[in-house]
């Protein structure tokens, strides 16, 4: 009797493991189906023109997501651009200059704190510090000066991206084969020459994977951006103008959306966001996999 129970117990356990694993694997597919089905009314009503429609006017039942797509892409790339020099420098500092020691511990912990701060706190902090600074600059340039807008959101977002790119890039940089570096030093290279001609080129795929993953994060970042971007559903004219990103328009309008088409248009934006971030993450993962094979 007891033996039979043991066998049964074991069987249930094995089945359970495969069940939850398969469930996890098809979770993404279920997500995709859920989003597609719920945004079907919008897909039918708005048609393909939704993707490049320039006006977002829920009152007139006119939905186009180009302003949000533009806002998302500009904000993400701008923040990535701002963060690149800092994250490469920090990764070189931690991976090449000081791989061990007290200074490294301080810097590494500091960067981990950057990763620990919740996005909504970044937004709130940015509203108090970065937004007034940008506002002052706008006044000097004789522009309307709300302080909030694409630039403000991008600056704060760039701070949030640093820990993500640094942690991956530091790892690949510190794994550069010592023989390569020593060969370059033996030929009389200086450290900066070793870095720019050996370390960076040989780790180019790891570094780009770091940026891809940060880009994926920047695209989907919601709360900080919602607080700082100024919330305007129009095509941004320059980097100072208030805008909307795909994530922040969902965050702001979802609970207030009246009518099926309005709500499902917002879900359709979510579907696009899902597709874009999934592709970017798959690409990043592919690059990382390539690195681990080549090592």
């Amino acid at each position, binding site marked *: 009797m007891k033996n039979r129970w043991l066998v049964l117990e074991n069987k249930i356990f094995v089945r359970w493991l495969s069940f939850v694993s398969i469930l996890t694997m098809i979770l993404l597919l279920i997500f995709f189906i859920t989003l597609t089905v719920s945004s079907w009314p919008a897909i039918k009503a708005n048609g393909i023109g939704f993707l490049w429609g320039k006006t977002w006017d829920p009152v007139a039942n006119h939905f186009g997501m180009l302003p949000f797509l533009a806002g998302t892409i500009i904000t993400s790339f701008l923040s990535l651009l701002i963060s690149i020099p800092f994250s490469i420098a920090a990764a070189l*500092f931690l991976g090449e200059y000081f791989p061990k020691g007290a200074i490294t511990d301080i810097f590494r912990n*500091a960067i981990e704190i950057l990763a620990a701060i919740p996005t909504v706190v970044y937004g709130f902090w940015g509203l108090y510090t970065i937004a007034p600074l940008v506002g002052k600059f706008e006044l000097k340039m004789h522009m309307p000066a709300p302080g909030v807008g694409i630039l403000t959101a991008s600056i704060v977002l760039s701070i949030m991206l640093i820990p993500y790119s640094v942690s991956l890039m530091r790892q690949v940089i510190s794994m550069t084969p010592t023989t390569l570096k020593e060969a370059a030093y033996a030929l009389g290279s200086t450290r900066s020459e070793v870095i720019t001609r050996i370390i960076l080129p040989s780790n180019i795929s790891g570094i780009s994977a770091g940026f891809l993953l940060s880009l994926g994060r920047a695209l989907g970042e919601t709360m900080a951006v919602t607080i700082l971007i100024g919330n305007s559903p129009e095509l941004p004219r320059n980097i100072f103008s208030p805008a909307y990103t795909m994530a922040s328009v969902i965050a702001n309008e979802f609970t207030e959306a009246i009518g099926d088409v309005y709500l499902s248009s917002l879900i359709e934006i979510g579907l696009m966001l899902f597709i874009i971030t999934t592709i970017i993450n798959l690409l990043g*993962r592919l690059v990382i996999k390539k690195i681990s094979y080549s090592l």
Partner: protein
Amino acid sequence: MMPRDIQGLKRRRAKDRIFSAFIWCLTISCLLVVTIILYYLFKEGISSINWALFSQNPKPVGETGGGILNAIVGSIMVVSIAAVIAIPLGVSVGIYLAENRGRKLTERLAVAVDVLQGIPSIVIGIIIYVWIVKPTGKFSAFSGSIALAIMMLPPIIKNTEETLVLIPRTLKEASLALGASYFKTTMKIVLPGGLGGIFTGCIIGIARIFGEVAPLLFTAFGNPELIFDPRKPVDTIPKVIFTYASSPYNDWHRIAWGGSLILVVFIILLNAVIKIFERKWRVQF
């Protein structure tokens, strides 16, 4: 010939110095940003931390004072329910991944987990809205917990897998050779050996979701009252910060600073716990 060479060498060395100075400057500015953020948090937050913040519910607009007791209770409730849902699932998937290495299916599962980690939290909020909030017709703490549980899964799965892979095969084989079933072996040999890593994964997951707002916006929603019932909408600390930060009232901003400080200190403490665990309980054989 000679002097020219020396000049070239000097130039290259100068270049090298400038380069490392540049690296130093940029890295130090990262450190500076961290310091500025923490400085602001403490400067603005410490003055709003008082007993009322922890013991009172929010007051209506116009009245001064009030606290975030409801949000603290709400955060703890939503996060604990999420942890109760996510930990068994995540650990199970982690076991599966560690035990079935090298198969095609396992590789695909690992990719799926990575992609899941990268999905924007707001999208998960929408999905849970469609799944739970819309059919039941109301916002609830429970639906928020499910959204957060999905976000907790990837770190738990990854950490479980990474620790369990380190457990020596010989240990498992010894147990199986003694006639213990696969289930017993996993429960009594494999899991206890990797407990430290699994625990770390769970705390990483909790640290990840504790500050999240986006998936809660249309699930747990928000509620100015003190609620212990997971079927009702609740406030959480980050949600309160978001609402108060986007309000025009100074008094509310003050409370938001206090909430931010509490939140950040708590998450940094969680990270410290993770560090200690990683050092102490690393699997070593």
